[in-house]
């Protein structure tokens, strides 16, 4: 009995922390219809600023809170001013991609400054616990509750009684009407980003103190949890976000109580998927409200794709095919093999995100499904490796499509959130389903690639094999794009309402896109598993999803040749310039930001 009270208190405290993140997300969504994927990064920044203040500067607690809030708010203002304001009049996909890019840049900057190793963040509070009914509560719990309640009150007073707060409310009711009435939208945006960042930063610091540990993985977790809470409460609904957060905290806490800690996130993401499917406008909105996304407006940048003549493509393919006949180093071949593997993932993502407009952020999960399937088929059932890889592709196509299907009714940002969550669910299932996946130990001793009984061990044979696979996949995808399906996919991307009015079923065509794309990604994962000979639940992670997304934007959304050119560029150029591994993600993030800002149609143009 007493432990239940403890779990309840714990759930409410954690919920309070989520609320600080979610309220910021709700404010931003309210005024700019944007889900700020960088919110978790600000939370991370807050935690590390708190660490600097406490450990290095020895500031007293109240001052620490003020320093963290002010510094985080400054980061928020910078993001608004330089990251998002220039994109105000651009297509809807641009700010979405920008916040993703900003989040990666911030995380990497923190990682490079403080190293990825976890640090302790002492709370400066006495370590005592008070009896409360049957449970106990500590001073830090009280502090978190106090900060949560105080922030809620301050926010309420600000929104209710200040002129700027009134403008924020007006802008979130009806942005156009507010602008006509003379509301300065830039100031409103500044206000919400500043407030959201201050709350997020303080939240990160409090969490660091609560667990007495901070590390760079906190960022993605915080974004996900905040988004879950916000969506559960109804996007853009500030009180809803608070209630959604408390609910999320309780669900997680009770879930942990029953099933154990490793299931914490699984509950959060399942809650998200259930809410998205059953009540996409949140628990408190009427189910039949108009969707919160604008119904008109273009999602992707209009452009004319660069036409590359077929003979040029054939010459390029032939050039790459004969490359191993020349005295090139093992290192060059290895780099290109990596490019081909990434290229297969990019082909998949460019179809899903570019051609049919579902910006998936969990694409690495498809790699993981393909890799595990292929590895287990060849190890446990002794299926020949060539067939096992195809099996991986098929499994990824089938299972991936099935998992993503709840998100088919969603649009824009919601698809990205849902795919991110589904990607996390896949990795958590791999971690926890030990009887099949061998859990955290991973799978080792995966047999090398082989074809018709011949092992492909030498670098050039692996190179030829992966080149052949990517060429076949690219040709198939090119053929798909010129068929009526390519036309239908693109129509759904450009205007799903008009597409439905002309008989295009969203479920049918989104499924077909994911089936086709899932196969390519699964094959890539399968080949990777046999090359690495060891995989675990972290082999295929969000970084690869983002890298693939950057490749896709670089090459041009939906552009098959662009996906391959982009892969070669993003894998090859860092090698050419000998950029150290830890700077690469930072550079990918910056490349993504620059593209979104200056060349949204990518190198070869959107198709």
């Amino acid at each position, binding site marked *: 009995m007493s432990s239940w009270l403890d779990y309840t208190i714990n759930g409410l405290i954690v919920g309070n922390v989520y609320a600080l993140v979610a309220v910021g997300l709700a404010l931003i969504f309210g005024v700019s219809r944007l889900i700020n994927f960088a919110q978790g990064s600000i939370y991370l920044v807050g935690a590390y600023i708190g660490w600097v203040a406490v450990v290095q500067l020895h500031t007293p607690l109240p001052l620490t809170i003020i320093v963290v809030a002010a510094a985080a708010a400054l980061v928020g203002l910078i993001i608004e001013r330089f990251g998002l304001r220039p994109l105000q009049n651009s297509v809807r996909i641009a700010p979405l991609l920008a916040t993703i890019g900003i989040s990666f840049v911030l995380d990497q900057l923190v990682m490079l400054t403080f190293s990825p190793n976890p640090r302790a963040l002492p709370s400066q509070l006495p370590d005592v616990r008070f009896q409360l009914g049957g449970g106990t509560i500590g001073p830090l719990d009280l502090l978190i509750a106090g900060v949560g309640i105080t922030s809620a009150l301050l926010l309420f007073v600000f929104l209710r009684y200040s002129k700027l707060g009134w403008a924020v409310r007006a802008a979130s009711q009806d942005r156009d009407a507010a602008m006509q009435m003379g509301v300065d939208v830039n100031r409103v945006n500044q206000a919400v980003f500043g407030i959201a960042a201050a709350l997020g930063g303080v939240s990160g610091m409090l969490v660091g103190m609560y667990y007495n540990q901070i590390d760079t993985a906190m960022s993605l977790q915080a974004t996900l949890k905040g988004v879950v809470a916000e969506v559960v409460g109804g996007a853009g609904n500030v009180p809803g976000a608070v209630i959604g957060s408390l609910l999320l905290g309780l669900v997680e806490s009770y879930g942990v109580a029953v099933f154990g800690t490793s299931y914490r996130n699984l509950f959060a993401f399942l809650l998200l998927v259930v809410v998205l499917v059953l009540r996409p406008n949140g628990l408190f909105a009427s189910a*039949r409200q*108009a969707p919160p996304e604008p119904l*008109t407006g*273009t999602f*992707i940048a*209009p*452009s*004319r794709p660069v036409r590359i003549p077929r003979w040029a493509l054939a010459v390029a393919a032939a050039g790459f095919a004969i490359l191993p006949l020349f005295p090139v180093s093992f290192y060059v071949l290895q780099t290109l093999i990596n490019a081909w593997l990434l290229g297969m993932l990019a082909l998949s993502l460019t179809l899903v995100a570019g051609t049919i407009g579902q910006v998936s952020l969990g694409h690495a999960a498809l790699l993981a499904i393909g890799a595990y399937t292929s590895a287990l088929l060849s190890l446990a059932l002794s299926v020949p490796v060539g067939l096992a890889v195809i099996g991986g592709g098929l499994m990824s196509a089938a299972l991936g499509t099935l998992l993503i299907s709840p998100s088919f009714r969603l649009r824009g940002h919601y698809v990205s959130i849902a795919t991110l969550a589904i990607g996390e669910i896949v990795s958590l299932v791999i971690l926890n389903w030990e009887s099949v996946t061998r859990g955290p130990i991973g799978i080792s001793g995966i047999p090398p690639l082989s074809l018709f009984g011949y092992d492909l061990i030498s670098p050039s044979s692996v190179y030829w094999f992966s080149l052949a696979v990517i060429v076949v996949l690219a040709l*198939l995808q090119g*053929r*798909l794009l010129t*068929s*009526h*399906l*390519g*036309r*239908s996919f*693109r*129509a759904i*991307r*450009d*205007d799903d*309402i*008009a*597409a*439905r*009015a*002309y*008989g*295009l*079923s969203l479920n*049918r065509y989104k*499924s*077909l896109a994911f*089936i*086709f794309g899932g196969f390519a990604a699964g094959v890539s994962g399968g080949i990777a598993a046999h090359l690495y000979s060891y995989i675990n639940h972290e082999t295929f992670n969000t970084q690869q999803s983002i890298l693939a997304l950057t490749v896709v934007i670089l090459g041009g959304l939906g552009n098959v040749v662009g996906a391959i050119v982009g892969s070669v560029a993003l894998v090859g150029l860092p090698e050419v310039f000998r950029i150290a591994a830890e700077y690469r993600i930072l550079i990918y993030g910056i490349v993504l930001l620059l593209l979104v800002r200056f060349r949204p149609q990518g190198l070869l143009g*959107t*198709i």
Partner: protein
Amino acid sequence: MGEHLDSMLSLRGLTRRFGGLTAVDAIDLDLAKGELISIIGPNGAGKTTLFNLVTGLDRPDAGTVRFEGQDITGLSPERLAAEGIARTFQLGRVFGNLSVMDNVLIGAHTRLRAVKPAVPVIGPLLELGLALLRPSSVKAEEERLREEVKAILARFGERLLPRIDQPAYSLSYANRRRVEIARALALKPRLLLLDEPTAGMNPTETAEMQALVAELKAKGLTILLIEHKLEMVMRLSDRVIVMDEGKKIAEGRGEEVRSDPKVIEAYLGHGLTGTAEQESAA
């Protein structure tokens, strides 16, 4: 209700509420085969919402929609498209990155053989297979449809044919409206709903559009038209329905409706909408 039996479309008590606002309020309507009915009314009267209810993009809170005797209330838009209901959109919804040809081909989507098998899982997979293998029957069908699209575009004279491979986003506003109508015609509709097809067009372009609609009507197509330009409404319509604040306030032949005091008051009560003013000035 003798009319009910042979009517192509019949609405009974159709109602849609948004919060406290009743956008469409207990509308009854019967549209006979080959008839053209215009719906007019001040801005915000609920005309577009009514179209959304008929085409399945929105669901009514009460009332029924029957199409050729079948109850189609609440069916999905994709089902209704397959039944032969096509529409254009007030604000123009072309597929911006698709060429004119591809935009109009989407109109013919429901007629493709590859999309016909409605078996779950197998049907879509067959469609994928056909798209990749492209046997000669599929190629021939595509070729035939392309010829058909060119014939449809030819109805707009030289407006669209020279731009057939250009992306729709590069077209003028009026041309986008034409592409929308071409796309609707490619569906071979049995019922066509046009939501302000001449919005934003100059007098010459409006006259062309009027001639086109007259031609479609003469060919026997059943049409429901929303239009602010009363001149055009008077010339084309067999009957006119006037809506205000969700309700049907008048119905009848053009001249009758025009002189109905309730109609005049509805327009005056809304301070004469800009478009109505232009009409009376013209």
